[in-house]
């Protein structure tokens, strides 16, 4: 029997530790699909290690915010795993600290901090990326809200643990349209939030199309490493929410025993790898949307989310 605080720490460590690996897997799958050999799966870890050894520079005139933002954002990303079912089916002591909205707020706070830091730099690309990210976030936010509404109506709470338990309860819960639609809408939001095709190219140098990637242009050294790691952690958190709350809440530890918890620590990255492979396939099968068409993508997600709420009201959802 592991003490609950330890499990809680393990949740954070699992997310933080596995996150760069997932990015590595996606990059590798993508390369394989394109017929390239591709980087090592562990490459992101090496990159991070290298960046941590480099010196840090800040643009002239940038205030302390510029340097504080990566650290604060990273701290935000490490807070969210406390709130969501990463390893256990039962809520841990800090799990009730915040609901789905609370987690969402913390994620947006991190994104806000990064955007502020980008504005500090005076670099046009960084600012462009930050302002675009905020613009489109205004469209994806209602989608997330509707997804939360759906969750709330399905479970009468808005706690991630409760939804995961509901989904596990019966097969009917998984196939009900409201749930399927909400999960699909959330998946589209995740594609947007993690900067994947069809919203933006993840690897490349097309500055004009960049949103997420452009914001860290002026950072360097350990600060850039923290931003990169933070991005990977955010991706991992979003994947965890989709997997452990919506689509596949299995493989979680039901007790505090060391065995189940260890199993869960392996299962989550494994599931995330599968999801990452799916994302990589999407990455390779579609073209990037023109910037103005991204609203259309967000509108489609919105449509799914709203239809999800509708079907619930119909009684058969």
């Amino acid at each position, binding site marked *: 029997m592991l003490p609950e605080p330890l499990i809680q720490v393990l949740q954070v460590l699992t997310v933080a530790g596995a996150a760069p690996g997932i990015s590595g897997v996606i990059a590798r799958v993508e390369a394989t699909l394109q017929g390239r050999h591709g980087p090592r799966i562990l490459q992101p870890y090496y990159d991070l290690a290298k960046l941590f050894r480099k010196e840090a520079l800040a643009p002239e005139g940038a205030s302390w915010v510029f340097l504080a933002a990566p650290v604060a954002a990273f701290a935000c990303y490490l807070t969210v795993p406390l709130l969501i079912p990463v390893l256990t089916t039962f809520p841990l002591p800090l799990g009730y600290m915040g609901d789905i909205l609370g987690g969402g707020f913390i994620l947006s706070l991190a994104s806000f901090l990064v955007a502020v830091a980008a504005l500090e730099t005076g670099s046009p690309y960084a600012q462009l990326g930050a302002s675009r990210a905020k613009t489109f976030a205004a469209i994806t936010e209602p989608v997330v809200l509707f997804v939360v509404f759906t969750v709330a109506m399905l479970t009468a709470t808005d706690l991630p643990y409760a939804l995961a338990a509901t989904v596990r309860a019966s097969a009917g819960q998984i196939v009900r*349209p409201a749930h399927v639609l909400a999960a699909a809408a959330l998946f589209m939001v995740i594609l947007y939030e993690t900067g994947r095709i069809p919203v933006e190219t993840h690897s490349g140098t097309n500055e004009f199309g960049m949103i997420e990637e452009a914001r860290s242009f002026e950072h360097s050294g350990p600060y850039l490493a923290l931003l990169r790691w933070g991005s990977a952690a955010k991706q991992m958190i979003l994947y965890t929410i989709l997997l452990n709350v919506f689509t596949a809440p299995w493989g979680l530890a039901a007790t505090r025993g060391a065995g189940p918890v260890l199993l869960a620590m392996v299962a989550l990255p494994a599931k995330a790898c599968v999801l990452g492979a799916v994302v990589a396939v999407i990455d390779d099968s579609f073209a990037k949307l023109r910037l103005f068409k991204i609203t259309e993508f967000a509108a489609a997600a919105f449509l799914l989310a709203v239809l999800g709420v509708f079907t619930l009201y119909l009684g058969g959802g």
Partner: protein
Amino acid sequence: MPPAPAPSVFAGTANVIAVLILLAEFGMFRQALLRDQVRLYAGQSVLIAALAVLVGAVQQLPELYVLAAVTIALKAVAIPLVFRRLLRETEPEHAEQTGHDIAGTGGLGLASTVLIGLAVAAFGFFTATALPVSSGGAPVTALSVSVSVILVAFVVMIHRRDVASQAIGLFSLENGISLASLVVAPALPLLVEVVLAVDLLLAVVVLGLLIRLHHGRAETLSTADLTELRG
């Protein structure tokens, strides 16, 4: 508000298929390219057939398998084939010269289409919920969805400005009726269903003839010039 109870696996799956049919209709509403529109229509028809098979298997109505087969043969294969041939023949080669580009002929912007589509679909959803219908076939929720499909199909026909899209709108309207009939009349005698299908094929041929006539005269599929008859 207490949590919404979970539907049975059958009801859930059937409803998901119904919602996918509605989403295909939305796709036709948004889709600019005629070719993709035809593809969406074929996909929608396959979904109808899938739902027919599901309902047939669960409610023990074997005649629905035949209906599914007819649906696939006619709506997912024959009609899209006819349409694709038609589109090939009427390829807008002179689109630049005549100024008629029929891709994306809708008269509305993105936000308006999504909002109108949602409003219309919502109206359909909630009006149909008020009906005192209990089903021996697909779950009743699918009936609400079918009303939404029908209404959105009407919007497609109104909103698009080319003959091919309008025809596709008409046929998807018929798909909406098929969906409704799977809910309220799954055991509608097979003979009637087959005659309906043949009738649909006839309509396709006539629509094809008329599209060709229109194209032969106007060198375009756009209906922008069909303004002679008024008042």
